[in-house]
């Protein structure tokens, strides 16, 4: 878990506009990876043949769902995720109050991925305390990323945060056979790569660790009004030229 006493990060307005345009255009670009825009999906930790493994687990089709290697899926955080940072100082890590942030919530939203962390495929009794530690080991992207929970009174518990550097504190404990939902916040539009490693101590006493898994997210805001206007103009011109 992260310390809750941190400085407020600053943001560059112009770079956010370019990042927004880039992210919006990326959403229309064909990629080798599958892009998931909605539905229940877990960042899944499994234990196979004595090794911990990381996957995406998309919960469709039911009941088994579909597994993806980390690099084979991109999670799209669409415009419905946009919200503003509250004046509550407990949320300092999201940015200045009133600034825009993109948050995947713990309540399923029809236009967003419903992202969870899962160790459901790991049988209880294999790991000490049935605990598996999922640690963030690397992150790239145009903004900061925060993974947090909220207590019954609205106060956050910060589990992972890239704004103060990445350390062993950027981790969340999963329990074998169970899964959890946390808030995933991104402070700017664009593409993010988050690299995780899962570690656990077997009941026999030895530690096992997964290979790093790189999980990609693309934050897609509403297209800027100007960009929509330009696109519309371009399409009109193309159509007119084809007609002549």
């Amino acid at each position, binding site marked *: 878990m992260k310390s809750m006493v941190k400085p407020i990060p600053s943001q560059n307005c112009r770079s956010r506009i370019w990042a927004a345009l880039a992210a919006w255009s990326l959403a229309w670009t064909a990629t080798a990876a599958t892009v998931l825009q909605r539905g229940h999906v877990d960042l899944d930790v499994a234990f196979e043949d004595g090794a911990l493994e990381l996957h995406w687990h998309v919960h469709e089709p039911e009941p088994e769902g579909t597994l993806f290697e980390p690099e084979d899926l991109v999670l799209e955080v669409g415009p419905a995720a946009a919200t503003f940072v509250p004046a509550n100082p407990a949320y300092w890590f999201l940015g200045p109050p009133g600034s825009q942030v993109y948050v995947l919530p*713990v*309540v*399923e939203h029809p236009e967003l991925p419903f992202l969870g962390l899962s160790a459901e495929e790991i049988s209880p009794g294999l790991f000490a305390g049935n605990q598996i530690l999922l640690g963030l080991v690397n992150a790239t992207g145009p903004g900061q990323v925060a993974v947090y929970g*909220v*207590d*019954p009174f*609205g106060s956050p518990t910060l589990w992972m945060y890239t704004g103060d550097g990445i350390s062993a504190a950027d981790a969340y404990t999963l329990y074998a056979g169970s899964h959890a939902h946390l808030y995933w916040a991104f402070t700017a539009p664009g593409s993010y790569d988050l690299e995780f490693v899962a570690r656990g101590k077997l009941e026999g006493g030895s530690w096992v660790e997964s290979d790093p898994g790189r999980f990609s997210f693309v934050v897609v805001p509403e297209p800027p009004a100007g960009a929509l206007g330009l696109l519309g103009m371009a399409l009109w011109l193309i159509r007119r030229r084809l007609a002549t």
Partner: protein
Amino acid sequence: MWRIMLASAAFWVFGSGWLQGQTPVRLTREHVDLWVEYREDMGPPRLRLWIVDHDRGLRYAPPEARLVVVEMARMELPGDYPPLGQAGESLWILPQSQDPRLLYLGWNAGGVAAGAFPNGVTVRLESVDGPGHFLLWQAAMHGIAVAMNSRDGADETDRVVLPPGSHSHWNFGFTAPGRYEVTFVAEAVAGDGITRETSPPTVVYFEVEPIPVEARPFELWQRRHWPDGGDVSLVGPGADPDGDGLVNVVEYALGLDPHVPDRDRLPRPVLVTTPEGRKLRLEFKTPRTATDVQFHAWQRPLPGPDMPWQPVLGPQVLSSAPEDEFQWLAFEIEAPMDSVGACLRWAVELLPWP
């Protein structure tokens, strides 16, 4: 003439007791959902609520499960959070964010196919029966959103709307320890805008610990008849203060008066003719509140001092309207025409409590 012998009723204190049906499963730390299911292929009701244990992949009808809120779920409110409560007040909370020490409880409409109900399934709070109040809310960066609150009664505003296939976790709060029966009703309107589906009122059972120890019914009977208390030789289960040969636990179990000799009100077996043949029936009434006693009976044919006693199944319930103060029970044994008679012995057992 058919001979009947009825041994005096005896009593046992703290006997082995009987298992009254299946013991509900206690769910304490699992990932559990209140699961809404819609089965178009079934007759009404097609909407139902279930308890689903995701950790074990098991599903329960709500009466089969007890959702336990352990004592460590108790929190003191750190400030004023209306309508949850005021600073310093206690609230037992199953939180929306997983705490491995607590039950992780959510709502799940995974049993409702996409497109079945364009406006989702509405789950209403119908009633709360318990020692305190029930609250359901979510907390996020922009504050607290309360969906259900029994402090101001249960009405149309106490509800959650679940999109088909959706899953969400909530804070479940209780203001006092004890047993709660929280009744929900699920409702939905199909795509034609006319067809309405409604689940039966479904009671979900919560146990908020520590469960207060309730005075056993026999103790309440003792206090009623001896308000000033008394020595065990007077008020104890084996005492016979009115000297009529019926000890106190028998007086209690049969709804008699321990201060008045009333041995003549002791039930007597009679011969009855039934479609299955002649029977010897012992009919008696017992107060509905006497839930901590159990009746037993045995039979053996006459003559038969050397014959072993055989247990008699029952007692059967003859009448048990909830509004009646008493319920009528009976033991029955065969009384064939070619037999000489039978001996029936019966006893009252005072069960362990709780």
